[in-house]
């Protein structure tokens, strides 16, 4: 497989979980403007319900680390427990370097620090999806 085959033309589907409505909406707009399909969820619980109902089949998950009820870390752990296959990109305003290690340990493939640019976002998603597919094909 050539790297080009993983381009935006494939119209990747992205799931976004963020408790802040305006942040959620702005990310969806950006993803859509970047040519990605995007669906948003206000909490990890909503996403898991959608996955269970098979309403969502995202290629990649954008996950806010900083949420009440269920933090990004807990959502990530639950997803890993359920054996989902799509890669997770965690984003947060948290500057702490150990945050990345925490999420990487929980199975996240990338970590973005808010605020992020469209290019950063796009590049990270592409890298995550490519790496994930490569891993899955290798199995």
């Amino acid at each position: 497989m050539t790297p080009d085959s993983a381009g935006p033309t494939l119209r990747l589907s992205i799931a976004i979980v963020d408790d802040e409505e305006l942040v959620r909406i702005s990310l969806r707009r950006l993803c859509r403007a970047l040519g990605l399909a995007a669906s948003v969820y206000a909490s990890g619980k909503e996403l898991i319900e959608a996955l269970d109902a098979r309403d969502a089949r995202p290629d990649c998950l954008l996950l806010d680390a900083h949420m009440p009820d269920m933090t990004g870390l807990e959502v990530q752990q639950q997803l890993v427990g359920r054996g989902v296959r799509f890669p997770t990109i965690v984003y947060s305003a948290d500057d702490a370097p150990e945050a990345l290690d925490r999420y990487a340990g929980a199975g996240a493939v990338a970590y973005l620090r808010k605020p992020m640019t469209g290019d950063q976002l796009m590049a990270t998603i592409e890298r995550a999806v490519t790496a994930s597919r490569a891993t899955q094909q290798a199995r």
Partner: protein
Amino acid sequence: MPAIDDVRLSGAALLRAKGGTLSLRNGLLLFGVISLLGNAIGAAMRYPEIGSAVLFPPYAALTAALVVSSRRHWVWFILVGDLTHFVAHWPQFSVSWILFADVANICRALTAAVLLRWLFRDALKLDGIVDLLRFVASAVVIAPAVGATIGAANVVLHGGSDSYLPPWGAWFTSNALTGLTMLPAFLLTVVNGPPWRGHWTRSRVIEVVVLGAVLAATCTGALMLRGDSRWQLALILYAPLPVLIWTALRFECVGASYALTAVAFTAIWAADRRIGPFLTAPPDEYVLDLQLFVGLTSLTVLCIAAVSSARNAAFHLHRALMASVHDHVAILDARGVVVEVNEAWRRFAETPNIAPSQRVVEGDDYIAACRAAVDDDDRIGQQGLIGVLSVLNGDRKRYEIEYDDSWTGTPHRYSFSIEALESPDGGAIAQRRDVTARRREQLEMEEQRRELSHLARVSALGQLSGALAHELNQPLASIGSNAEAARILLKRRPLDNGEIDNILRDILSENQRAAEVIRRLRALLRRGETRLQPLNATELISEVLELAHAELITRRVTATSVIAPNLPPVLGDRVQLQQVLLNLILNACEAMRSTRPSDRRLVLLVNAGAPGQIQVSIRDCGTGISPELIERLFEPFVTTKPEGLGLGLSISRTIVAAHGGRVWAENNADGGATLHFVLSAAVPEATAGELSFMLGSASAPSSAAAR
């Protein structure tokens, strides 16, 4: 003999004597001379008609010596007293008679001395009727009775009398009269020092000389005459009274006692010489006549002297008091005329350039001076007029103001009060105090308190810095994503104007939100003057919860506010009250650090407490507060946090107290603790209807459930 040298004669610990010191040797010598002289006079004044002396000076001498000398020296005085008694009476009387009489004398003087020292613990003085009654009871009644009981037995045993009562009466009367006439002079002289040692003005010396001359003339003139008719007798017996009363009024008990002694001796001497008014009576009655005259005159004059002495003491105390008060004091009568001012007031009144109304001194009409102030643009006088009129009219008991006075060029702050006098004649007392220094200290303290509370605020916000960065990053992230999306959309054709408009609207609203966070932060970080204004509790709490929002999420605490509807606004300083709330919320979060995340619930309750009050309660589900800490929780430097300074709660208490409220803590029955504080409502409470509580999350502004 070291025990004898340099012992204070007057230095008995029990009595404060102003008479200075005498060595024991000199004291005994002096006492010996007086006692010998007294015994000789006593012996010379023995009347065969009564078998005793009319006056017995040794009683006064020994009692005075015992009262002022140290108890361990009493034995010396008693021995010298006995010796002189013996010398004066031997060989006229048998040794056994003299020794028996000695026992009577010793017991009498000891009784008097012990009683006097007990009754006049602080200082022997005869100021007032109570003092006089104590003196008469101990030295004129009880001690002479003790002496007479033993002395009369002596007379009977030695065959001087067939029955017991007549010698008892004679002994008692002679010593009681001694107690009334010369004992006060002896006592007060040894206690206060000889009168000639004091400070004597020339007029006082002249007065004493004139008084002595008039007394001598009256005594010799009256007491050595024989009154043939009743009016002559009355004239003679009353003649000494005016000069005695003069002495009593001007020279108190000590002077009166000296004068009475002189009158008594003259009367006795005259009677002894078979001249004077008492010889008109039959031979067996004139001694009684003489004794009644001396006794009743002495009692009357001593009463007058004691009352006058009390009055003088009160007058001197009043003068000393007025002089020692540093405040400027003026006493006004019921018409507002200045009756008296103290030295401080007078000095101030003489300061150049002060307000005209402040120049009043004794005799001036204060009300008139203040009325004149209305034309003089003298604001101080105008205030004074309001005060003095309202107090003198009885509208109020006390009027008090603080004002800045810049009349003299250097600004001063004074506290001025006018208070009604609790006297039947009415009147008022005006007091002025320079409080410039106190005021300056007050301002400095306030400044320091503000500084400290500002520091505490900055430190509390420091704790929040991570959360606050998040709070700002959130809208910034949203703005960034929206702007990028818009840029991409702008390159597409056809333009989706609707979506671009939506994006811009969201950007504006997020921008607004970021500005709001900064505005709140700046308000809390500013160090400003305290500004009291009516505040809405709901707004206050929701603003603080917004500020703490990100921190609550990080700490995984769910906050709910339950606010009673229709609460009146509270009067307070917005920033300071937010500081208190923020502090209590952060403390509650800290207390729930080890609680399971799903149980970390924080509830803010606001309701009407007592009438006119608003009560705010912050309830957590943490570890609670240990009983030994709960009382001291609000003291400075008391903390449970390893890194805490322990100032947050103490500053919170200071702030709440400055708002006229109070703050306290209690443990919840079902775990955790609740911190309460009450504040005054800004307006009188509206009619207390039924308070239906409404869950905060159900109403938009008070919604605080962490999003």
